[in-house]
Protein backbone atom coordinates (compact mmCIF):
# COMPACT_ATOMS: atom_id res chain seq x y z
CA UNK A 1 0.00 0.00 0.00
CA UNK A 2 1.38 3.48 -0.86
CA UNK A 3 2.66 5.42 2.12
CA UNK A 4 0.22 8.33 1.67
CA UNK A 5 -2.75 5.95 1.72
CA UNK A 6 -1.40 4.10 4.72
CA UNK A 7 -0.93 7.39 6.56
CA UNK A 8 -4.42 8.52 5.65
CA UNK A 9 -5.99 5.29 6.89
CA UNK A 10 -3.94 5.18 10.08
CA UNK A 11 -4.64 8.84 10.92
CA UNK A 12 -8.34 8.54 10.07
CA UNK A 13 -8.53 5.51 12.35
CA UNK A 14 -6.84 7.51 15.09
CA UNK A 15 -9.37 10.34 14.66
CA UNK A 16 -12.27 7.88 14.77
CA UNK A 17 -10.87 6.22 17.90
CA UNK A 18 -10.53 9.66 19.49
CA UNK A 19 -14.13 10.51 18.58
CA UNK A 20 -15.35 7.23 20.02
CA UNK A 21 -13.80 8.22 23.37
CA UNK A 22 -15.97 11.34 23.40
CA UNK A 23 -19.44 10.16 22.33
CA UNK A 24 -21.18 13.15 23.89
CA UNK A 25 -19.30 15.41 21.49
CA UNK A 26 -20.78 13.59 18.52
CA UNK A 27 -24.32 13.69 19.82
CA UNK A 28 -23.88 17.32 20.88
CA UNK A 29 -22.85 18.25 17.36
CA UNK A 30 -25.95 16.66 15.93
CA UNK A 31 -28.32 18.30 18.40
CA UNK A 32 -26.58 21.65 17.97
CA UNK A 33 -27.29 21.75 14.24
CA UNK A 34 -30.96 21.00 14.84
CA UNK A 35 -31.15 23.74 17.44
CA UNK A 36 -29.64 26.29 15.04
CA UNK A 37 -32.07 25.32 12.30
CA UNK A 38 -35.10 25.49 14.60
CA UNK A 39 -33.87 28.83 16.00
CA UNK A 40 -33.79 30.35 12.52
CA UNK A 41 -37.09 28.77 11.52
CA UNK A 42 -38.85 30.28 14.57
CA UNK A 43 -37.15 33.62 13.86
CA UNK A 44 -38.44 33.51 10.31
CA UNK A 45 -42.00 33.00 11.60
CA UNK A 46 -41.66 36.30 13.48
CA UNK A 47 -41.19 38.17 10.19
CA UNK A 48 -43.64 36.33 7.99
CA UNK A 49 -46.31 38.43 6.36
CA UNK A 50 -49.77 37.01 7.16
CA UNK A 51 -51.29 35.24 4.18
CA UNK A 52 -47.96 34.28 2.60
CA UNK A 53 -48.49 31.41 0.14
CA UNK A 54 -47.18 27.90 0.83
CA UNK A 55 -44.99 27.99 -2.31
CA UNK A 56 -43.19 31.13 -1.16
CA UNK A 57 -42.64 29.74 2.34
CA UNK A 58 -41.25 26.49 0.92
CA UNK A 59 -38.94 28.32 -1.47
CA UNK A 60 -37.57 30.49 1.30
CA UNK A 61 -37.10 27.52 3.62
CA UNK A 62 -35.25 25.70 0.85
CA UNK A 63 -32.97 28.70 0.25
CA UNK A 64 -32.18 28.78 3.97
CA UNK A 65 -31.79 25.04 4.52
CA UNK A 66 -29.71 24.27 1.42
CA UNK A 67 -27.53 27.29 2.04
CA UNK A 68 -27.07 26.14 5.62
CA UNK A 69 -25.72 22.78 4.38
CA UNK A 70 -22.84 24.60 2.65
CA UNK A 71 -22.35 26.62 5.81
CA UNK A 72 -21.91 23.60 8.09
CA UNK A 73 -19.50 21.94 5.64
CA UNK A 74 -17.40 25.11 5.59
CA UNK A 75 -17.65 25.49 9.34
CA UNK A 76 -16.64 21.90 10.15
CA UNK A 77 -13.81 21.90 7.61
CA UNK A 78 -12.30 25.08 9.04
CA UNK A 79 -12.85 24.14 12.67
CA UNK A 80 -11.80 20.53 12.44
CA UNK A 81 -8.49 21.12 10.65
CA UNK A 82 -7.56 24.31 12.49
CA UNK A 83 -8.73 23.14 15.89
CA UNK A 84 -7.06 19.74 15.72
CA UNK A 85 -3.73 21.41 14.82
CA UNK A 86 -4.21 23.75 17.76
CA UNK A 87 -4.92 20.83 20.07
CA UNK A 88 -1.70 19.14 18.99
CA UNK A 89 0.13 22.41 19.68
CA UNK A 90 -1.32 22.71 23.18
CA UNK A 91 -0.68 19.08 24.04
CA UNK A 92 2.85 19.32 22.70
CA UNK A 93 2.52 16.54 20.12
CA UNK A 94 2.60 18.67 16.97
CA UNK A 95 6.37 18.90 16.72
CA UNK A 96 6.94 15.19 17.20
CA UNK A 97 4.23 14.40 14.65
CA UNK A 98 5.84 16.70 12.12
CA UNK A 99 9.25 15.18 12.65
CA UNK A 100 7.88 11.78 11.68
CA UNK A 101 8.18 10.82 7.98
CA UNK A 102 4.39 10.76 7.39
CA UNK A 103 2.76 12.28 4.34
CA UNK A 104 1.58 15.83 5.19
CA UNK A 105 -1.34 15.84 2.78
CA UNK A 106 -2.75 12.59 4.15
CA UNK A 107 -2.19 13.89 7.65
CA UNK A 108 -4.28 16.99 6.95
CA UNK A 109 -6.99 15.21 4.98
CA UNK A 110 -7.49 12.56 7.64
CA UNK A 111 -8.32 15.25 10.21
CA UNK A 112 -11.45 16.24 8.31
CA UNK A 113 -12.50 12.95 6.72
CA UNK A 114 -14.47 11.56 9.67
CA UNK A 115 -16.21 14.84 10.38
CA UNK A 116 -17.27 15.19 6.75
CA UNK A 117 -18.98 11.80 6.91
CA UNK A 118 -20.75 12.95 10.06
CA UNK A 119 -21.66 16.28 8.42
CA UNK A 120 -23.35 14.40 5.58
CA UNK A 121 -25.53 12.57 8.12
CA UNK A 122 -26.28 15.80 9.98
CA UNK A 123 -27.20 17.57 6.74
CA UNK A 124 -29.65 14.87 5.73
CA UNK A 125 -31.19 14.91 9.20
CA UNK A 126 -31.41 18.72 9.21
CA UNK A 127 -33.03 18.83 5.76
CA UNK A 128 -35.58 16.24 6.82
CA UNK A 129 -36.38 18.34 9.89
CA UNK A 130 -36.94 21.53 7.88
CA UNK A 131 -38.89 19.55 5.32
CA UNK A 132 -41.16 18.29 8.10
CA UNK A 133 -41.61 21.80 9.51
CA UNK A 134 -42.55 23.51 6.24
CA UNK A 135 -44.36 20.64 4.55
CA UNK A 136 -41.71 19.44 2.09
CA UNK A 137 -38.63 20.90 0.40
CA UNK A 138 -38.16 20.95 -3.40
CA UNK A 139 -35.60 18.43 -4.66
CA UNK A 140 -34.65 18.79 -8.35
CA UNK A 141 -31.53 17.87 -10.36
CA UNK A 142 -30.08 15.85 -7.47
CA UNK A 143 -27.08 14.54 -9.48
CA UNK A 144 -26.01 18.03 -10.58
CA UNK A 145 -26.51 19.42 -7.09
CA UNK A 146 -24.37 16.67 -5.54
CA UNK A 147 -21.63 17.38 -8.07
CA UNK A 148 -21.73 21.08 -7.14
CA UNK A 149 -21.61 20.11 -3.46
CA UNK A 150 -18.59 17.85 -4.09
CA UNK A 151 -16.71 20.69 -5.83
CA UNK A 152 -17.75 23.04 -3.03
CA UNK A 153 -16.41 20.63 -0.41
CA UNK A 154 -13.02 20.20 -2.14
CA UNK A 155 -12.84 23.97 -2.46
CA UNK A 156 -13.49 24.33 1.26
CA UNK A 157 -10.71 21.80 1.92
CA UNK A 158 -8.36 24.37 0.40
CA UNK A 159 -9.57 26.89 2.98
CA UNK A 160 -9.01 24.25 5.65
CA UNK A 161 -5.38 23.77 4.56
CA UNK A 162 -4.82 27.51 4.61
CA UNK A 163 -6.24 27.65 8.13
CA UNK A 164 -4.02 24.80 9.25
CA UNK A 165 -1.06 26.99 8.16
CA UNK A 166 -2.53 30.07 9.80
CA UNK A 167 -3.02 28.13 13.05
CA UNK A 168 0.66 27.22 13.11
CA UNK A 169 1.52 30.86 12.61
CA UNK A 170 -1.14 32.71 14.67
CA UNK A 171 -1.82 30.02 17.29
CA UNK A 172 -4.73 30.97 19.61
CA UNK A 173 -5.86 33.90 17.48
CA UNK A 174 -6.51 31.61 14.51
CA UNK A 175 -9.67 30.33 16.18
CA UNK A 176 -11.15 33.80 16.24
CA UNK A 177 -10.17 34.21 12.62
CA UNK A 178 -11.96 30.95 11.79
CA UNK A 179 -15.08 32.31 13.47
CA UNK A 180 -14.73 35.57 11.59
CA UNK A 181 -14.30 33.88 8.22
CA UNK A 182 -17.20 31.56 8.87
CA UNK A 183 -19.55 34.45 9.63
CA UNK A 184 -18.11 36.54 6.80
CA UNK A 185 -19.18 33.89 4.29
CA UNK A 186 -22.45 33.31 6.11
CA UNK A 187 -23.40 36.92 5.44
CA UNK A 188 -21.61 37.92 2.25
CA UNK A 189 -22.14 34.59 0.49
CA UNK A 190 -25.76 34.67 1.71
CA UNK A 191 -25.66 31.17 3.19
CA UNK A 192 -28.91 31.47 5.17
CA UNK A 193 -30.90 33.89 3.02
CA UNK A 194 -31.24 34.83 -0.66
CA UNK A 195 -28.71 37.23 -2.22
CA UNK A 196 -31.52 39.64 -3.04
CA UNK A 197 -31.63 40.65 0.66
CA UNK A 198 -28.12 42.11 0.53
CA UNK A 199 -27.76 45.73 -0.59
CA UNK A 200 -26.85 45.98 -4.28
CA UNK A 201 -23.46 47.49 -3.47
CA UNK A 202 -22.62 44.53 -1.21
CA UNK A 203 -23.73 42.10 -3.91
CA UNK A 204 -21.70 43.83 -6.61
CA UNK A 205 -18.55 44.68 -4.69
CA UNK A 206 -18.30 41.77 -2.25
CA UNK A 207 -20.54 38.76 -2.94
CA UNK A 208 -19.89 38.51 -6.66
CA UNK A 209 -16.13 38.42 -6.02
CA UNK A 210 -16.33 35.39 -3.76
CA UNK A 211 -16.27 31.93 -5.38
CA UNK A 212 -18.12 30.59 -2.33
CA UNK A 213 -21.12 32.75 -3.30
CA UNK A 214 -21.38 30.93 -6.63
CA UNK A 215 -21.12 27.55 -4.89
CA UNK A 216 -23.97 28.44 -2.51
CA UNK A 217 -26.06 29.98 -5.28
CA UNK A 218 -25.63 27.14 -7.75
CA UNK A 219 -26.18 24.37 -5.18
CA UNK A 220 -29.45 25.69 -3.83
CA UNK A 221 -30.97 26.98 -7.06
CA UNK A 222 -30.14 23.67 -8.78
CA UNK A 223 -32.03 21.82 -6.06
CA UNK A 224 -34.92 24.28 -6.06
CA UNK A 225 -35.03 24.10 -9.85
CA UNK A 226 -34.71 27.77 -10.76
CA UNK A 227 -32.13 30.06 -12.41
CA UNK A 228 -29.18 31.15 -10.23
CA UNK A 229 -29.48 34.52 -8.54
CA UNK A 230 -25.99 35.82 -9.30
CA UNK A 231 -25.68 34.94 -13.00
CA UNK A 232 -29.22 34.00 -14.08
CA UNK A 233 -28.31 34.02 -17.77
CA UNK A 234 -24.92 32.35 -17.49
CA UNK A 235 -25.38 29.09 -15.63
CA UNK A 236 -22.38 27.59 -17.41
CA UNK A 237 -20.15 30.38 -16.13
CA UNK A 238 -21.32 29.60 -12.60
CA UNK A 239 -20.45 25.94 -13.15
CA UNK A 240 -17.01 26.95 -14.45
CA UNK A 241 -16.36 29.10 -11.37
CA UNK A 242 -17.48 26.34 -9.00
CA UNK A 243 -15.36 23.66 -10.74
CA UNK A 244 -12.31 25.96 -10.84
CA UNK A 245 -12.77 26.70 -7.14
CA UNK A 246 -13.04 22.99 -6.34
CA UNK A 247 -9.80 22.19 -8.16
CA UNK A 248 -7.61 25.24 -7.59
CA UNK A 249 -8.44 26.00 -3.96
CA UNK A 250 -7.00 22.77 -2.42
CA UNK A 251 -3.84 23.14 -4.53
CA UNK A 252 -3.26 26.73 -3.39
CA UNK A 253 -4.20 25.81 0.19
CA UNK A 254 -1.75 22.94 0.30
CA UNK A 255 1.10 25.02 -1.16
CA UNK A 256 0.45 27.74 1.40
CA UNK A 257 0.39 25.20 4.20
CA UNK A 258 3.70 23.68 3.06
CA UNK A 259 5.28 27.12 2.90
CA UNK A 260 4.21 27.95 6.47
CA UNK A 261 5.32 24.53 7.64
CA UNK A 262 8.81 24.99 6.13
CA UNK A 263 9.04 28.48 7.59
CA UNK A 264 8.08 27.26 11.06
CA UNK A 265 10.68 24.49 10.87
CA UNK A 266 13.38 26.91 9.70
CA UNK A 267 12.57 29.37 12.47
CA UNK A 268 12.19 26.57 14.99
CA UNK A 269 8.73 27.75 16.07
CA UNK A 270 6.83 24.53 15.38
CA UNK A 271 6.84 23.52 19.03
CA UNK A 272 5.75 26.95 20.30
CA UNK A 273 2.18 27.71 21.25
Amino acid at each position, binding site marked *: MPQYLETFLAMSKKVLVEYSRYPIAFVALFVQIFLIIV*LFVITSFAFETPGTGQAQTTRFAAMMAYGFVTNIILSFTLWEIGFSIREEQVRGTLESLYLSPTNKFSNLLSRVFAILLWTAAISIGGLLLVSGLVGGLPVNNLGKALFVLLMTTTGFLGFGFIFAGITIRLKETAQILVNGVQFFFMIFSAQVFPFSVLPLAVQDYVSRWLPVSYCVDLFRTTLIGEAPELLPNDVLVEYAIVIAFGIVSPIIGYFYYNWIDRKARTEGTLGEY
Partner: protein
Amino acid sequence: MAPETVSHGFGLGRPGWRASLDIVRTVFIARLKIIFRYRLSILGETVMPVVFAAMPILLGTAIAGGSEQQAADNFFRYTNAVGQGTTDFRLYMLLGSNTFMLVSLMLWLIGYWVRREQETGTLEALYLSPAKRIHILAGVTSYTLVRALLAFTTAMALGSILFGVNPLAGNFAAAMGYFLLGIPALWGISFFFGALVMRIKEANAVIQLLQWVLAFAMGIYFPVSVFPAIVRYTAMAFPPTLMNDAMRSSLLSIPSLYGEWYVVVGLMFMAAWSVPLLGYEFFLRTERRIKRDQGVGQF
Protein backbone atom coordinates in the same frame (compact mmCIF):
# COMPACT_ATOMS: atom_id res chain seq x y z
CA MET B 1 21.17 8.86 58.58
CA ALA B 2 20.57 11.05 55.52
CA PRO B 3 18.76 14.32 56.15
CA GLU B 4 15.16 14.28 55.01
CA THR B 5 12.94 17.16 53.99
CA VAL B 6 9.29 16.76 54.85
CA SER B 7 6.66 19.32 53.85
CA HIS B 8 4.01 19.94 56.43
CA GLY B 9 2.16 22.52 54.33
CA PHE B 10 1.00 25.50 56.34
CA GLY B 11 0.55 23.45 59.51
CA LEU B 12 -1.75 25.47 61.71
CA GLY B 13 -0.90 28.64 59.81
CA ARG B 14 -3.56 30.02 57.49
CA PRO B 15 -3.02 32.58 54.71
CA GLY B 16 -4.43 35.97 55.69
CA TRP B 17 -6.75 38.12 53.58
CA ARG B 18 -3.80 39.87 51.95
CA ALA B 19 -2.40 36.55 50.75
CA SER B 20 -5.85 35.49 49.53
CA LEU B 21 -6.32 38.75 47.69
CA ASP B 22 -2.91 38.30 46.18
CA ILE B 23 -3.98 34.93 44.73
CA VAL B 24 -7.04 36.53 43.11
CA ARG B 25 -4.90 39.36 41.74
CA THR B 26 -2.18 37.04 40.45
CA VAL B 27 -4.61 34.74 38.65
CA PHE B 28 -6.47 37.74 37.21
CA ILE B 29 -3.28 39.37 35.89
CA ALA B 30 -1.93 36.08 34.54
CA ARG B 31 -5.10 35.51 32.51
CA LEU B 32 -5.11 39.09 31.23
CA LYS B 33 -1.47 38.79 30.19
CA ILE B 34 -2.23 35.64 28.23
CA ILE B 35 -5.17 37.16 26.37
CA PHE B 36 -3.29 40.35 25.54
CA ARG B 37 -0.86 38.16 23.63
CA TYR B 38 -3.79 37.45 21.28
CA ARG B 39 -5.31 40.86 20.64
CA LEU B 40 -7.24 39.77 17.59
CA SER B 41 -9.37 37.56 19.86
CA ILE B 42 -10.67 40.65 21.61
CA LEU B 43 -11.57 42.25 18.30
CA GLY B 44 -13.39 39.08 17.28
CA GLU B 45 -15.53 39.22 20.40
CA THR B 46 -16.64 42.72 19.42
CA VAL B 47 -17.61 41.76 15.89
CA MET B 48 -19.28 38.44 16.67
CA PRO B 49 -22.46 39.74 18.40
CA VAL B 50 -22.94 42.24 15.60
CA VAL B 51 -22.85 39.39 13.09
CA PHE B 52 -25.25 37.38 15.27
CA ALA B 53 -27.64 40.33 15.19
CA ALA B 54 -27.16 40.96 11.47
CA MET B 55 -28.29 37.46 10.53
CA PRO B 56 -31.90 37.65 11.80
CA ILE B 57 -32.15 41.27 10.64
CA LEU B 58 -31.24 40.29 7.08
CA LEU B 59 -33.27 37.09 7.29
CA GLY B 60 -36.31 38.95 8.60
CA THR B 61 -36.09 41.62 5.92
CA ALA B 62 -35.85 38.89 3.27
CA ILE B 63 -38.90 37.07 4.60
CA ALA B 64 -40.88 40.30 4.69
CA GLY B 65 -40.21 40.73 0.97
CA GLY B 66 -37.17 42.98 1.24
CA SER B 67 -39.02 45.88 2.87
CA GLU B 68 -37.75 47.03 6.25
CA GLN B 69 -41.06 48.67 7.11
CA GLN B 70 -42.89 45.47 6.34
CA ALA B 71 -40.38 43.54 8.48
CA ALA B 72 -40.94 45.97 11.36
CA ASP B 73 -44.73 45.67 11.01
CA ASN B 74 -44.60 41.89 10.90
CA PHE B 75 -42.29 41.76 13.90
CA PHE B 76 -44.60 44.09 15.82
CA ARG B 77 -47.60 41.90 15.02
CA TYR B 78 -45.73 38.78 16.18
CA THR B 79 -44.33 40.22 19.41
CA ASN B 80 -47.54 42.10 20.20
CA ALA B 81 -49.43 38.82 20.19
CA VAL B 82 -47.43 37.83 23.28
CA GLY B 83 -47.70 41.25 24.91
CA GLN B 84 -44.27 42.62 23.99
CA GLY B 85 -44.98 44.51 20.79
CA THR B 86 -42.09 46.49 19.32
CA THR B 87 -41.21 47.67 15.84
CA ASP B 88 -37.56 48.24 16.68
CA PHE B 89 -36.45 44.76 15.67
CA ARG B 90 -32.86 45.90 15.07
CA LEU B 91 -32.31 46.98 18.67
CA TYR B 92 -34.23 43.91 19.85
CA MET B 93 -31.83 41.61 17.98
CA LEU B 94 -28.74 43.59 18.92
CA LEU B 95 -29.59 43.48 22.62
CA GLY B 96 -30.40 39.79 22.48
CA SER B 97 -27.18 38.96 20.64
CA ASN B 98 -25.05 41.07 22.94
CA THR B 99 -26.50 39.61 26.13
CA PHE B 100 -26.13 36.16 24.62
CA MET B 101 -22.48 36.86 23.83
CA LEU B 102 -21.88 38.12 27.37
CA VAL B 103 -23.34 34.96 28.92
CA SER B 104 -21.70 32.74 26.35
CA LEU B 105 -18.28 34.29 26.89
CA MET B 106 -18.48 33.80 30.64
CA LEU B 107 -19.28 30.13 30.13
CA TRP B 108 -16.70 29.62 27.38
CA LEU B 109 -13.92 31.22 29.34
CA ILE B 110 -14.53 29.24 32.54
CA GLY B 111 -15.06 25.99 30.64
CA TYR B 112 -11.96 26.52 28.57
CA TRP B 113 -9.89 27.50 31.55
CA VAL B 114 -10.65 24.15 33.20
CA ARG B 115 -10.13 22.26 29.95
CA ARG B 116 -6.88 24.04 29.12
CA GLU B 117 -5.45 23.34 32.56
CA GLN B 118 -6.46 19.69 32.10
CA GLU B 119 -4.84 19.43 28.69
CA THR B 120 -1.61 21.15 29.62
CA GLY B 121 -1.44 19.01 32.74
CA THR B 122 -1.45 21.91 35.21
CA LEU B 123 -4.86 21.36 36.79
CA GLU B 124 -3.59 18.69 39.14
CA ALA B 125 -0.60 20.83 40.10
CA LEU B 126 -2.97 23.71 40.81
CA TYR B 127 -4.96 21.47 43.12
CA LEU B 128 -1.84 20.52 45.04
CA SER B 129 -0.95 24.16 45.70
CA PRO B 130 -2.01 25.53 49.12
CA ALA B 131 -4.21 28.22 47.49
CA LYS B 132 -7.94 27.93 48.14
CA ARG B 133 -10.04 27.07 45.11
CA ILE B 134 -12.47 29.91 45.73
CA HIS B 135 -9.67 32.45 45.35
CA ILE B 136 -8.40 30.92 42.12
CA LEU B 137 -11.94 30.81 40.79
CA ALA B 138 -12.52 34.40 41.87
CA GLY B 139 -9.46 35.44 39.85
CA VAL B 140 -10.58 33.54 36.76
CA THR B 141 -14.20 34.70 36.95
CA SER B 142 -13.12 38.33 37.45
CA TYR B 143 -11.04 38.04 34.32
CA THR B 144 -13.95 36.54 32.37
CA LEU B 145 -16.18 39.34 33.59
CA VAL B 146 -13.77 42.06 32.44
CA ARG B 147 -13.38 40.41 29.06
CA ALA B 148 -17.11 39.88 28.63
CA LEU B 149 -17.93 43.46 29.66
CA LEU B 150 -15.36 44.82 27.23
CA ALA B 151 -16.91 42.77 24.43
CA PHE B 152 -20.45 43.82 25.43
CA THR B 153 -19.68 47.55 25.48
CA THR B 154 -17.71 47.65 22.24
CA ALA B 155 -20.15 45.38 20.39
CA MET B 156 -23.09 47.50 21.55
CA ALA B 157 -21.37 50.66 20.29
CA LEU B 158 -20.39 49.10 16.96
CA GLY B 159 -23.80 47.50 16.44
CA SER B 160 -25.63 50.73 17.24
CA ILE B 161 -23.62 52.59 14.61
CA LEU B 162 -23.98 49.88 11.96
CA PHE B 163 -27.71 49.28 12.46
CA GLY B 164 -28.55 52.92 13.12
CA VAL B 165 -30.19 52.35 16.51
CA ASN B 166 -29.96 54.38 19.69
CA PRO B 167 -29.71 52.22 22.83
CA LEU B 168 -29.76 55.37 24.99
CA ALA B 169 -33.28 56.28 23.89
CA GLY B 170 -34.97 54.03 26.46
CA ASN B 171 -34.41 53.84 30.21
CA PHE B 172 -30.67 53.32 30.01
CA ALA B 173 -29.98 53.68 33.75
CA ALA B 174 -32.52 50.95 34.58
CA ALA B 175 -31.03 48.68 31.91
CA MET B 176 -27.56 49.12 33.39
CA GLY B 177 -28.94 48.40 36.85
CA TYR B 178 -30.50 45.15 35.63
CA PHE B 179 -27.28 44.34 33.86
CA LEU B 180 -25.15 44.69 37.01
CA LEU B 181 -27.72 42.81 39.06
CA GLY B 182 -27.59 39.94 36.59
CA ILE B 183 -23.82 39.43 36.80
CA PRO B 184 -23.62 37.42 40.10
CA ALA B 185 -26.07 34.85 38.70
CA LEU B 186 -23.87 34.50 35.63
CA TRP B 187 -20.93 33.85 37.93
CA GLY B 188 -22.90 31.09 39.60
CA ILE B 189 -23.81 29.51 36.26
CA SER B 190 -20.17 29.59 35.20
CA PHE B 191 -19.29 27.56 38.34
CA PHE B 192 -21.86 24.97 37.27
CA PHE B 193 -20.33 25.00 33.85
CA GLY B 194 -16.75 24.64 35.07
CA ALA B 195 -17.81 21.63 37.14
CA LEU B 196 -19.56 20.10 34.15
CA VAL B 197 -16.49 20.44 31.95
CA MET B 198 -14.30 18.99 34.68
CA ARG B 199 -16.64 16.02 34.94
CA ILE B 200 -17.41 15.16 31.32
CA LYS B 201 -14.28 16.70 29.79
CA GLU B 202 -15.63 17.15 26.25
CA ALA B 203 -15.56 20.91 26.72
CA ASN B 204 -15.68 22.00 23.11
CA ALA B 205 -18.78 20.05 22.17
CA VAL B 206 -20.58 20.71 25.43
CA ILE B 207 -19.91 24.43 25.27
CA GLN B 208 -21.03 24.67 21.67
CA LEU B 209 -24.21 22.74 22.35
CA LEU B 210 -25.07 24.59 25.54
CA GLN B 211 -24.39 27.84 23.75
CA TRP B 212 -27.27 27.18 21.38
CA VAL B 213 -29.50 25.81 24.12
CA LEU B 214 -28.76 29.08 25.85
CA ALA B 215 -29.63 31.08 22.75
CA PHE B 216 -32.93 29.27 22.68
CA ALA B 217 -33.69 29.63 26.37
CA MET B 218 -32.76 33.32 26.42
CA GLY B 219 -34.91 34.14 23.42
CA ILE B 220 -32.17 36.06 21.66
CA TYR B 221 -34.24 36.57 18.51
CA PHE B 222 -37.81 36.27 19.79
CA PRO B 223 -39.70 36.35 23.12
CA VAL B 224 -39.67 33.03 24.99
CA SER B 225 -43.42 33.36 25.46
CA VAL B 226 -43.87 31.86 21.99
CA PHE B 227 -42.79 28.48 23.40
CA PRO B 228 -45.24 25.90 24.79
CA ALA B 229 -45.93 26.32 28.53
CA ILE B 230 -43.36 23.82 29.90
CA VAL B 231 -40.53 25.09 27.71
CA ARG B 232 -41.54 28.68 28.42
CA TYR B 233 -41.47 28.31 32.21
CA THR B 234 -38.19 26.39 32.07
CA ALA B 235 -36.67 29.14 29.94
CA MET B 236 -38.04 31.84 32.23
CA ALA B 237 -36.49 30.16 35.28
CA PHE B 238 -33.09 30.60 33.67
CA PRO B 239 -31.36 33.75 35.07
CA PRO B 240 -29.90 34.99 31.71
CA THR B 241 -33.45 35.00 30.27
CA LEU B 242 -34.51 37.24 33.14
CA MET B 243 -31.55 39.54 32.57
CA ASN B 244 -32.16 39.70 28.83
CA ASP B 245 -35.86 40.38 29.26
CA ALA B 246 -35.28 43.03 31.94
CA MET B 247 -32.80 44.93 29.78
CA ARG B 248 -35.00 44.69 26.72
CA SER B 249 -38.10 45.86 28.55
CA SER B 250 -36.32 48.94 29.90
CA LEU B 251 -34.54 49.91 26.68
CA LEU B 252 -37.42 49.19 24.32
CA SER B 253 -40.15 50.37 26.73
CA ILE B 254 -42.09 47.11 26.50
CA PRO B 255 -43.68 45.14 29.36
CA SER B 256 -41.51 42.48 30.98
CA LEU B 257 -42.56 38.83 30.71
CA TYR B 258 -42.13 38.57 34.47
CA GLY B 259 -44.52 41.37 35.42
CA GLU B 260 -43.96 44.73 37.12
CA TRP B 261 -40.47 46.16 37.62
CA TYR B 262 -40.40 45.32 41.34
CA VAL B 263 -41.10 41.67 40.55
CA VAL B 264 -38.20 41.71 38.12
CA VAL B 265 -35.89 43.36 40.65
CA GLY B 266 -36.98 40.90 43.36
CA LEU B 267 -36.33 37.91 41.13
CA MET B 268 -32.97 39.28 40.08
CA PHE B 269 -31.92 39.81 43.72
CA MET B 270 -32.95 36.27 44.51
CA ALA B 271 -30.93 34.90 41.60
CA ALA B 272 -27.97 37.14 42.51
CA TRP B 273 -27.37 35.42 45.85
CA SER B 274 -28.79 31.93 45.36
CA VAL B 275 -27.22 30.96 42.00
CA PRO B 276 -23.57 31.70 42.96
CA LEU B 277 -24.00 29.77 46.24
CA LEU B 278 -25.57 26.80 44.49
CA GLY B 279 -23.01 26.97 41.67
CA TYR B 280 -20.04 26.98 44.01
CA GLU B 281 -21.47 24.15 46.09
CA PHE B 282 -22.01 22.12 42.91
CA PHE B 283 -18.44 22.83 41.84
CA LEU B 284 -17.06 21.64 45.20
CA ARG B 285 -19.17 18.47 45.20
CA THR B 286 -18.12 17.59 41.64
CA GLU B 287 -14.51 18.27 42.50
CA ARG B 288 -14.66 16.02 45.59
CA ARG B 289 -16.24 13.24 43.58
CA ILE B 290 -13.62 13.47 40.83
CA LYS B 291 -10.79 13.49 43.37
CA ARG B 292 -12.28 10.39 45.02
CA ASP B 293 -12.72 8.56 41.69
CA GLN B 294 -9.96 9.08 39.15
CA GLY B 295 -8.34 12.36 40.21
CA VAL B 296 -8.28 15.69 38.41
CA GLY B 297 -5.20 14.84 36.34
CA GLN B 298 -7.10 12.69 33.85
CA PHE B 299 -8.45 14.10 30.59
